[in-house]
């Protein structure tokens, strides 16, 4: 890679379950103060916590620039409802919405709904890909200029610019069009954690941002290459994919030396990679990995959000900004602009009105 790509940073604001708005708003504002691209809020039907998309909708008017990416699961939910809710998050945040697509694999989750048994991840990710696909089709089902308010003919919309999607998936079908008009970003940003094989396949095909787990820059670069080749194989522009390394960080004792292994990369812990050290050490790691062009950035999950996110923003990010490796302000207003992703042209719109490439 010839030129160093802009660095992208994101942070998870979950952690122990909290049900009030104030704590979530405070964390999102903290991340916004560091000009991070977006915050994520993890979710699942089977663990304590409020509905993540609702929380980030509550956060939206209390913030102005930061991207808002809740986990939205696709296994026991209705694809039509999901696409409406994500589009609405984009409307209420004025173009800052994304969604982290995920699946529900456990029997415990299946019993909460009583509609279908648990299924293997491969089948669920196949379905999740279809949900992402139909979501994009529903977001495109209204052309951007469908609302005409033509008093002379009495028509509020041009019905020729509203399109049925007629989607037939392996487990569901959707007739369309959407109820929600095309959202500000055209399509909200799709984030997929590509750690597992089946998820990586869906990510290469449908994601704008992919999270990967790696213990060395070389491993991260190999994963990014694999994802970009996969995207190209699906007819996508590989440069339209942002690959972020997912890192759980513990900045609990900044005075101690970092855990052994920093030189070679973060430690592997469970499903993820784990970093323990000081804010400066984390900035060092980010700098080294990004300088090599291995990845587009990092998704950081603070192990204790109130403490570690503050250290990430005021320590790590401030240092990266000082080194001119990370922006100090948001030059744009939408999450796609933060990520350097163009607003997708509507698949139904004639080429002359296309606003960019997808």
């Amino acid at each position, binding site marked *: 890679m010839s030129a160093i790509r802009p660095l992208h940073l994101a942070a998870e604001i979950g952690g122990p379950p909290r049900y009030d708005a104030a704590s979530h708003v405070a964390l999102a504002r903290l991340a916004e103060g560091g000009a991070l691209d977006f915050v994520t809020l993890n979710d699942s039907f089977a663990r304590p916590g409020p509905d993540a*998309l609702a929380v980030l909708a509550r956060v939206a008017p209390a913030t102005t620039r930061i991207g808002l990416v809740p986990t939205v699961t696709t296994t*026991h939910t*209705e694809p039509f*409802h999901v696409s409406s809710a994500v589009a609405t998050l984009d*409307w209420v945040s004025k173009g800052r919405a994304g969604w982290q697509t995920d699946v529900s694999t456990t029997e415990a989750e299946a019993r909460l*709904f009583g509609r279908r048994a648990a299924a293997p991840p491969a089948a669920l990710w196949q379905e999740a890909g279809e949900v992402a696909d139909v979501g994009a089709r529903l977001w495109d089902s209204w052309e951007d200029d469908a609302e005409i308010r033509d008093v002379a003919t009495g028509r509020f919309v041009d019905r020729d610019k*509203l399109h049925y999607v007629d989607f037939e998936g392996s487990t569901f079908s959707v007739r*369309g069009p959407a109820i929600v008009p095309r959202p500000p970003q055209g399509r909200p940003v799709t984030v997929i954690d590509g750690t597992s094989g089946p998820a990586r396949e869906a990510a290469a095909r449908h994601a704008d941002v992919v999270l990967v787990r790696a213990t060395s820059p070389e491993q991260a670069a190999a994963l990014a290459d694999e994802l970009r080749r996969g995207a190209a194989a699906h007819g996508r522009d590989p440069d339209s994919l942002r690959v972020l390394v997912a890192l759980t960080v513990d900045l609990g004792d900044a005075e101690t030396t970092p855990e052994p292994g920093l030189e070679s990369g973060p430690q592997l812990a469970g499903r993820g990679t784990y970093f323990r050290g000081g804010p400066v050490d984390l900035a060092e790691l980010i700098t080294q990995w990004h300088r090599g062009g291995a990845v587009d950035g990092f998704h950081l999950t603070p192990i204790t959000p109130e403490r570690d996110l503050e250290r990430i923003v005021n320590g790590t990010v401030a240092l990266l900004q000082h080194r001119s490796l990370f922006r100090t302000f948001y030059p744009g207003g939408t999450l796609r602009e933060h990520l350097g992703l163009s607003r997708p042209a509507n698949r139904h719109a004639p080429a002359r009105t296309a606003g960019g490439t997808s």
Partner: protein
Amino acid sequence: MHLAAHFPGVNSTTVWTDPRSRSQIDFSSFEHLARTAERGRFDFFFLAEGLRLREHNGRIHDLDVVGRPESLTVLNALAAVTERLGLAATVNATFNEPYELARRLATLDHLSAGRAAWNVVTSSDAFTGENFRRGGYLDRADLPQVLGSARTGGTPYTRAAEFVATARELWDSWTPDGTSRPFTHTGQHFEISGEFTVPRSPQGHPVVIQAGDSGEGREFAASTADVIFTRHGTLEAGRAFYADVKARLAAYGRQPDDLKIMPGVTVVLGDTDAEAQENAAEIRRLQVSPQNAILALEQVWGRDLSSYDPDGPLPDIDPDLGSDLVQGRVRVADPLAVAAKWRALSEAKGLSIRRTVIESTARQSFIGSPETVAADLEKFVATDAADGFILVPHLTPGGLDDFVDRVVPLLQERGAFRSEYTGSTLRSHLGLAEPVWKG
């Protein structure tokens, strides 16, 4: 008196051709109307729901407002810019699942510090179902339970009743002191078990609103709802409905005050009563455009009447009774009777198609000077025709400004409406007790 504000759209009430009409979608429109309602010390803000775009003659209906954002997401955002106002979402009990919806409602109640409400509606048509996984289930054994509607006397309520009961079981599965306990529900429609992920919310249970006018709908409301959203706009019809529904409560061990009756109404103001009448006539003329007049006629006749002149006479052919011209909205119950009534009116007064539709279809409930309207609203409540009103403005988002600035102060002077919120939750605004925990 209780007051609520409905965000208008997706029907012919909204005069989108008015130059003051703004976006039906942008958050700023929702924020303006919600802040206005809160400035007026309203009980709650109310959003309707759409799950499929309406069709007419096999094509998407294009004459009214089309499209809206998803209700619960909008209300969570509104919770950030309001402090006391109740936030009510219409959410269908047919194309949702109890666990997910109970969780979303409990989340809204937490994030708004106790201001959430759920307007329970049902849908039975396969037309809507074509957008959902559930769509296919209409063909299976559930069909007898879900077919039919409030109008035809069928029973969409069995699934809805079990849905609401199940949601309440989930809301009660955490003890008031914050301990999660496993739940099991085994019923006709749902067989689910596990642990709910959200503690008991500030109101105990979000407020349950229900709309419906059939005997079964009234019974469902009497057994289950905290608020019933009706259409009875006249004093006489309102009083009859009020007496009937309140009388049904005792059978469920409930007091008359446990269920608030709130008709959806429109208000047209003027400096004088005469000016208000002129304003009302102009609004009706704008609501029933030439194109909308033909469309309204087609909805009764079930036929393509696009070749007719809206300023000419009514067609002399009969309605097509088996027509599926209209999709996504309920067709009139008895087209032959309605057609006969419209013909009689047209002949008696010499009215064109458009004038006939203007005269025959829904009209404003309260028209007059602020003094007249305030007195009329108070009379409805004082004579047991309603406990309050859900106002449906015809303009987005400024349609409530005049009411809040000119009528609310008069209601407050009369002692008919609160001057300040006394509590912070929607239940406290409505004077409803927190539900007893049933562990």
